[in-house]
C-alpha cells in the first residue's frame, strides 16, 4: 500500500530495505541531511507497510555565473542525485512515480530540464531511464575515475536528460547524444 511523500529526517531510521542492498550507496548521514535542509521539495520517498521502499534525492542549480560563457554552462535545472528502489519492490512503477514527482517539483521551480549521470555499463538503469523519457545528452569521458578492471582508465558517464516545459525548443534532447563527448573537468 504505497504512499509517496516528501522525506523527513526521521525517515532516515527506515532506510534498511533500500540501503542494505549493496548496489545502493549508503551515504554519510550528513549527505542526506544536507539535501534535506537545502532542497526538501526534491527529496521524495515511497512508504509501504511502515518501511521506506524507495527514494529519490534531487537538487536544482545552475553553473556558477563565472562559467556563463562556457559552452558547458548549465542553466537552471534539476538533477537526480540518487534514485533507488528496494529490490523486492521493483517492477511496480515506483521509479516512475518518484521521478515524476521530482520533475513536477522542478517544473514548479522553472527548471529547463532534469538530468542525471549514469555509468555507461549500467544498462539496466539506462534502459529504465529511457523508459521514463530520459535520453543521453552527452558522454562524460572518464567521469568515474576509479580503477576499472585493473587499468587506471575510468569509466564514461552518460548525462541523461528530460526537457521540461520551459525548454520549448527542446534544446536539451539530442538524438546522437552518446557521440557528444565532454571532458570530466568541464562538467559542473
Amino acid at each position, binding site marked *: *500500500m*504505497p*504512499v*509517496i*511523500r516528501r522525506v*523527513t*529526517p*526521521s*525517515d*532516515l*531510521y*527506515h*532506510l*534498511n530495505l533500500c*540501503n*542494505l*542492498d*549493496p*548496489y545502493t550507496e*549508503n*551515504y*554519510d*548521514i*550528513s549527505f*542526506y*541531511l*544536507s539535501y*534535506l*535542509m*537545502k532542497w*526538501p*521539495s526534491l527529496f521524495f520517498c515511497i*512508504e*509501504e*507497510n*511502515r*518501511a*521506506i521502499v524507495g527514494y529519490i534525492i534531487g537538487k536544482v542549480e545552475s553553473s556558477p555565473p563565472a562559467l556563463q560563457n562556457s559552452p558547458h554552462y548549465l542553466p537552471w535545472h534539476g538533477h537526480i542525485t540518487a534514485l533507488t528502489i528496494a*529490490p*523486492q*519492490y*521493483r517492477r*511496480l*512503477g515506483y521509479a516512475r*512515480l518518484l521521478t515524476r514527482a521530482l520533475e*513536477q*517539483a522542478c517544473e*514548479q521551480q522553472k527548471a529547463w530540464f532534469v538530468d542525471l549521470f549514469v555509468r555507461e555499463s549500467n*544498462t*539496466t538503469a539506462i534502459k529504465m531511464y529511457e523508459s521514463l523519457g530520459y535520453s543521453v545528452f552527452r558522454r562524460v569521458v572518464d567521469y568515474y575515475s576509479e580503477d576499472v578492471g585493473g587499468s587506471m582508465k575510468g569509466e564514461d558517464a552518460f548525462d541523461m536528460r528530460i526537457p521540461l516545459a520551459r525548454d520549448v525548443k527542446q534544446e536539451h534532447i539530442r538524438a546522437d547524444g552518446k557521440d557528444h563527448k565532454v571532458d570530466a573537468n568541464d562538467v559542473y
Partner: protein
Amino acid sequence: MASKFGVAGGIPERRVRPIWDAIDSRQFKNALKQVSSLLGKYPNSPYILSLKALVLERMGKPDEALAICSSAKELLHSNDSALMDDLTLSTLQIVFQRLGHPDLATSCYEHAAAKFPNNLDLMMGLFNCYVRESSFVKQQQTAIKMYKIASEERFLLWAVCSIQLQVLCGNGGEKLLLLAEGLLKKHVATHSLHEPEALMVYISLLEQQDKYGYALEILSGNFGSLLMVEVDKLRIQGRLLARTGDYKAAADVYEKILELCPDDWECLQHYLYCLLEDDPTQGIENKIDAIKLVDCRSSPLTDEVFDSRITRATTFVHKLQENLGNDIVRCPYLAGLEIERRKHLYGKGDEQKLMEDLIQYFFRFGHLACFTSDVEVFVQVLSSDRKVELFKKLMESSSTISQVPAKALGLSITVFKFQQLVGNMHGFTVDGLEDLAVKMVEMFCKNLPLSKDLDPQESMHGEELLSMACNVLIQLFWHTQYFGFILEAIMVLEFGLTIRRHVWQYKILLVHLYSHVGAISLAYEWYKSLEVKNILLETVSHNILPQMLGSPLWMDLNTLLRDYLKFMDDHFKESADLTFLAYRHRNYSKAIEFVQFKERLQNSNQYLLAGIESAILELKQNAGNIDEEERILENLKYGVHFVELSNEIGSKPLTFNEDLESRPWWTPTPEENYLLGPVGEISHIPKDNLMKKQEANARTLIEKKALLPRMIYLSIQSASLSFKDGVEVNGSVSNPIVSSEMKILLEHFAKILGYHLSDALGVLGEVCRDLKSTEVFGVDVINWVNFAVFSNAWKLNSNEFDSQERGAHKFGSWHDVDTLLKKCVLERLKFLSAPISLHVTDFQMLVRLITEPLSWHVLLIQSCVRTSVPSGKKKKKSGSVDPSVLTLSSVVHDSIQSLCGTFEEVMKWLRNQIRRLECKEENLEGILLSMRNEVQKGRPGGAFQILETMCSSGSKELGDRISGALKSWDSNHLVRKIVSGQRAVLSETLSICESKCRTLNTLKKQISQI
C-alpha cells in the same frame, strides 16, 4: 567600519588563499610554514592566529591550538581596534568547536555582536552559535534583533521557529505560540508573506493551537498561491477541513487529490475516514512512525447515511479503477477491499463479497511480492473457516492464472506466504513442514534458469523461497530438536549466497543462525559483508552486538563498538551546522524536524549502552594489569559519570531506533530467542508488548552496567586500604568515604536485583552453604556474582560486617566468594555438554563469568598484593609485618589457589571440547554425513539433498554465471568452516583463561614473599 569588513580578516585575500588551499589539501606542514611567516608580518592579527590554531588542531596538537585560540580571543576582547569580522570569528569557532569548547566561540561572537550591534554577519554567526548549543531562547532573541535591524521575513521566521522549538523540545509553555502568532500577524499586516515555507510555518503554528478555521482562511486567501504544487495545497486543505469537522468538504478535496494521484493509499484512507466521519488521524502527521491506521472506532453515522456514503465511495473508487491507464497501480483496487472491510466493521459486512474481491485482487496482483502484506488487514476480518476456504481457492486458481513462468512463480510464492498468513503453519505436522521446505527449495532450483540473464544487481526470481525454506526448517528444529535442521537451514542460505552474493536477507538470517550454533566468528563475517555504516549502524547493529558482547572475540567487538560510537559522536559534532543550513535556505520546518531527529538519536538506548560497554570492554581486556586498569579508570573519571547515568536512567527519555522487522521470527528482539525456550505454542506476542519489555530491559541493563566501572574502582581502593590505612582515594576521598559510597552503590545494585542489601547478602550466603540453589539468581547470574565480588571488597574496608551477621548465613568472606565463583562456573560446565548443541547462552554466561566477576576478583587480589608486597614502587615503610595483614595474606593466598583450581577446570573442559570438535563423528560433519547418506521421514536432509543434486546435475540452461557458482558449492568445506568457527570461540576463551592463570601464578609467587 566598512573597510574593516571589506577585507578578509584585514589581510589581503591573495595572502591567505594559499593557506586555506594547503589546509583543504591536507598539506598541514606547508600550511603551518606559510601561516607562521604571515604571522611575522601580522603578529596581532586574530585572523592569522586563528588560522594557525586551525592548522595545529588538524596536525593533532590540540593544546597548542587551544593556547593560540585563547590568545586570539584575548586580543579580540582587549584590543578595541582588533578586526572582528565573521571570517575571523568563524575560523575561531571551527577550532574551538573541534577542541570541545564551543562556549568560548559563543562568547567571542557575543562580544563582537555587542560591540557592533548592527552587523548582520556577526549576528548570524551568533545565532548559529546558539543553534549549536540548542539555546532556543537566545536564538529567538538574536533573530528578533536581526529582524529589527533588517525587517527581513526570514529573520522573523527564524524567531518563530525558535519559539516553536521552545514549546516542542524545550520547557516553553504553549502560550509562547500566541506570541509567535502575534509576531507573524504583525509582519503580515505590514510586509505580507513571500515564501511558501513561511506560509507553512504560519499554518503549522495555527494548527498547533487548534486554530484550524483560521488556518483555512489563510490558506484560501491570497497566500494560498505561494504553494505552487496543487496537490500540496489540497492535502493541507483536506487535513484542516477534517479537523474543523467539515467532513463533506474534506472528502471533496480528497477526491480531487485521488484523481491526481490514484496510487496514494494514505489519502484514500483519509477520504474514507472523512466520508464515514470517523477521523482517527487527528493530531497524527503523515509519518512512518505514527500509529498504524488499521483499526478505528465504529462510525457514528445512521444506517442510511452510512449506506449512502459507502455508495458514494464505491462509485468514486470504480471511476478511479476505470480511469487507470496501466496495470500496476494497486491503490484503487485496495480501496475496494477497504470499503468492504469498513462495511464489516460497521456490522454490514459481506464475507462472500470480500472473498470475491480478494480473489480478483489475487488474479490481478497475486504474482507480486507485496500481495500478502497488501491483503493482510482485509483477511483479518474473515472467520477462520473462510480464511481456509480462501486459501484453497487461491491455491486452485494459482496454476491457471498465468503461463508466463516468472508470474507463475510469483503466484506460487504468494500461495506459500498466504498459507503462513492464515496461520496454517503453526498447525502443520512435522511431515507437512518437511514437504513444504522441500517444495520451496525444489521450486527455487527449478526456476533458476529464469534468472540466467539477470544482472547480478537484480534479485533472482524466487529469491524469497530460500528465506522461507529456512524459516520452515527452523520451525522443524523447534518441533523435533534435531540439530540437523539448523544445519540444513544454514546450508540452504549459504547455497543461495553462493549463487548471488548480495542477498542481505539471507545474510541476516545467517548472522543469527551462526550465533546460535556458537560460530560467532562466521556470524561476524557475514555481518561485515553487509557493510553496515552510517545511519545503518544505529538501525542494524542489534543483529550482532548483543551476541558479540557475550563472546570472547574482543578485537572484533572493540571494532564494532568503536565504529558505532565514532559515527554517533562525529554526527553530534557536525549536526548543528546542518540545522543552520535549513535556516539559511529558509526551510524552517526542516530546522524543527532536524532538532527532533537529533534528539531521537541522542537518546538512543544503544548509544548509551555502547558507551558503557566500551568502557567495560577496556576494563575486561586489561584486568590482568592493575596499573593499566587504574589508568583506564582515571580516563573514565573513575566511573562517576556512569553512576550519574545509572541514577538518571529511570526518568531519561530513551529511544529505540533498531529495525526489528529484519530479525528472524524466532528472535523478534535482542532479548527473545524462542529456540532456547521450551517447545510449545508460540503465543503471538504483540509487537507493542515486545517493545515495552525491551524498553524496561534496556533501562535496567543501563542502570546495572553503569555502576560497574565505579564499583571496580572503589573495590580496588577498598582492597588496597584493607592492607594499608589512611590512603587518600581519588585525591580527596578518604577511607570511610570509600566504604560508605560502596555501600550506597551496593544498595542500589541489590535493589535492581530486587532485594535489600542485607537480604541480598543473605541469599548469597545461603547459596554458598548449599541452602539454596543458584536458580534463585534466575537469568541474573552474572550480576549476582559481580555483586558478591564487590560485597567482599566492601567488607574488607567496612566494619558493618560483624560476626553475628556471618553467623546468620550472611555472605562475607573471601572463601564465600571463591566458593560461589567455583560453584557457578562448574554448574555452567555441567550444562554445556556436546559441542554441536553448544548452548549458546550458557556458553556466553561462562565467558562472562570468567571475564567479569572472576576478573574483577583477580583485580582485587592484585590490589591487595600490590599494597602488601614489599617490592618495587610500593615498598612498605617498616620491616615488621602487621599480624592482621599476615592473616589477610593467607586468605588471599587461599583465594588464589581456589581461583587457579576453577580456571583449571574450565581449561580442562575447553580442551576436551576442542578435541571433540576435531572428531568428525562428534561434530557437525557427522550430521552432514547422515543428511547426505539417507533421509528418513521427520529427519533433516530432504532439502539439502535437492541442493546437492542440483549442483551435481549441472544444466546448460543456467548460463555461465549460475553454473559457475554451482560448481563452487562445497558443503564439506562449509561445514568444516563452521566447526573451525566454533573452535575459534573455544580457543579464544582458553587463551583468556591461560592468561588469567599466568596472572594468578605471578601473584602467588609475590604473596609468598610476605
